[in-house]
């Protein structure tokens, strides 16, 4: 122990010198970092700190730090409101439905595209199905309203053919399906890209071997393709499960109308309404914080389980 002390001190001294030399040599790199780091501090980390008002009775006069503490009052206030459970249920159901419907489709699409040899057909399908990804949410929702409009929309005629004559956008029970399947419509093609990339990376000798063994195409997909893309599938799955509570504000808010509110009011839209429309900052922050924390816990849990079970994780 005593013999090690001087060497440790020397090492520390050496490290300090390297650090100083590093700073001298790299000062321009640190200069570059100033503005972006300022961005992250101001627009990411200060807001995180501002979450403290979830535990205070915020008022403009006293400011964030001067306002009196309120403990968990706002959280209690939220959960005492029967609306809370509706919101949580709506949020979870919408995300789970979205996950169950949206997760397998891109995989199936990629596996199917991978079988196609006709280049023109393959490229056409890819070009067309990527396109909706680049259309804005406002436009997608507008399109939904127009094509499902009982008066002018063609989808209303299609539904009428199947004996459905109501306006789906005014029907609370149809809200989730409209939301989820229009999402699939918009994102499935683009989400397939990542699986296509994974499929392209599979060792060709595996296909060779499968062919020699006389495997049918279906068997080849089962025994070569699926194991080949499994790590990608796991990562995408963790990311989607990890964002289950983080379901976006934008589309739900636009699809909302007074008729479907019982199903379409989710935590994100509720936070906006009580925060910015009713100006109850503390309550809105508490609800938002509750949401973020649950989400973070979910993500960490899924990642841990996945690492344990499959050996694949985000980090």
């Amino acid at each position, binding site marked *: 122990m005593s013999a090690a002390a001087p060497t440790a001190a020397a090492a520390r001294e050496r490290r300090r010198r390297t650090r100083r030399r590093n700073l001298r040599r*790299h000062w*321009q*790199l640190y*200069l*570059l970092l100033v*503005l*972006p780091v300022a*961005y*992250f501090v*101001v*627009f*990411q980390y*200060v*807001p*995180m700190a*501002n*979450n403290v*008002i979830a535990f205070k009775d915020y008022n403009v006069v006293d400011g964030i730090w001067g306002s009196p503490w309120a403990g968990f009052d706002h959280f209690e206030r939220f959960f005492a409101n029967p609306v809370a459970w509706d919101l949580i249920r709506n949020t979870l159901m919408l995300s789970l439905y979205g996950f169950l419907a949206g997760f397998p489709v891109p995989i*199936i*699409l990629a596996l*199917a595209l991978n*079988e*196609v040899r006709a280049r023109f*057909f393959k490229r*056409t*399908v890819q070009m*067309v*199905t*990527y*396109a*909706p990804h*680049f*259309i*804005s*949410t*406002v*436009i997608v929702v*507008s*399109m939904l*309203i127009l094509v499902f409009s009982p008066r*002018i929309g063609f989808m209303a*005629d299609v539904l009428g053919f199947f004996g459905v004559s109501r306006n789906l956008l005014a029907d609370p029970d149809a809200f989730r399906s409209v939301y989820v399947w229009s999402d699939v*419509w918009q994102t499935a093609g683009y989400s397939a*890209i*990542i699986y296509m990339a*994974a499929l392209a990376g599979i060792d060709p000798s595996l296909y060779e071997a499968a062919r020699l*063994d*006389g495997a*049918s*195409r279906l068997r080849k997909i089962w025994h070569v393709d699926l194991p080949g893309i499994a790590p*990608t599938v796991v990562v995408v799955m963790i990311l989607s499960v990890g964002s289950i509570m983080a379901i976006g504000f*934008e589309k739900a808010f*636009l699809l909302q109308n007074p008729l479907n509110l019982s199903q379409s009011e989710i935590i994100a839209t509720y*936070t906006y309404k009580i*925060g*910015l429309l009713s100006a109850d900052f503390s309550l809105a*922050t508490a609800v*938002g*914080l509750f949401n973020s924390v649950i989400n973070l816990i979910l*993500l960490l849990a899924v990642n841990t389980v996945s690492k344990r079970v499959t050996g694949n994780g985000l980090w």
Partner: protein
Amino acid sequence: MTFTTARRAEPEAETPRPKRRRGTQVQDTRVDRVFMVGVYVLLTTFLLVVLVPLANIVASSFSSPAAVAGGRVFLWPVDFSLVGYEAVLGNESVLTGFANSVFYAVVGTIVSVALTVMIAYPLSRADLVGRKVLIAGVLFTMLFSGGLIPTYMVVRALGLLDTRWAIILPTAIAAWQVLIAMTFFRSSIPGELYEAAQLDGASELRFLWSVVLPLSKPLLAVIALMYGIGQWNSYFSALIYLRSEELYPLQLVLRDLLIVNNSGGSNLADQLAAQQMADLMKFSLIVVSTVPVLLVYPFVARHFTKGVMLGSVKG
């Protein structure tokens, strides 16, 4: 071989005829051919599901007001006319919104790309002291964010409410893009180049400007497009931070016109007086607002695929 005969006990396995007919192509058994038919049916269905609504919108936008309001348009314009476009392009709030969106997209993209390079390049350098902490700081913002109200309070405290900066600054850097850029710099800028530049006495900034950036054109194209399209399509920041209509980006104008149906300016009220015209205008509006994205789309489709793959290489 035994595996093959055991599995292929169907009658067609014994008949040699199909083999000859198909020449050198890989042998497809009957099961496989049925399977391929299924694949093509599946992909064609998907193609049509994506294409038909888009085609319907475009066809409607080129039809006459009466045909649209009567719900008579499906995939081809009925009573071809351009009055929908004339009305849209003569609408003041649409034109203002369009101009604002161009401004937000161009300035926002420049700011975002600059900041992203400024943080991603230094962090891609393995010899930079403090790099790990900073990377962790960036990544953490992907897991946990400040939330709506806490961020709003920062924007308000900075006096950015109802200014153009509120649209550009709070979302200036996306952690995901930083990750993509970092991975790119690390994997495609050879260390030898840096050593050579050092020997020639080039400073860090000089090296970044004259060597790294010219070599990173594909990356810059990808992140510029992602930021640009993201900014063009977003309405959330504008909804929260803007009050003055003359600052509204196109998406927020569209929301008012297409979804909320509150017809803003008085000028517009006149135009919306005729219900038929209003219906037609919606279709034309959708097309007009999506054109800028469609113009870059062929370029985008090629590069975005690369972008997704850049991102999928774990850093």
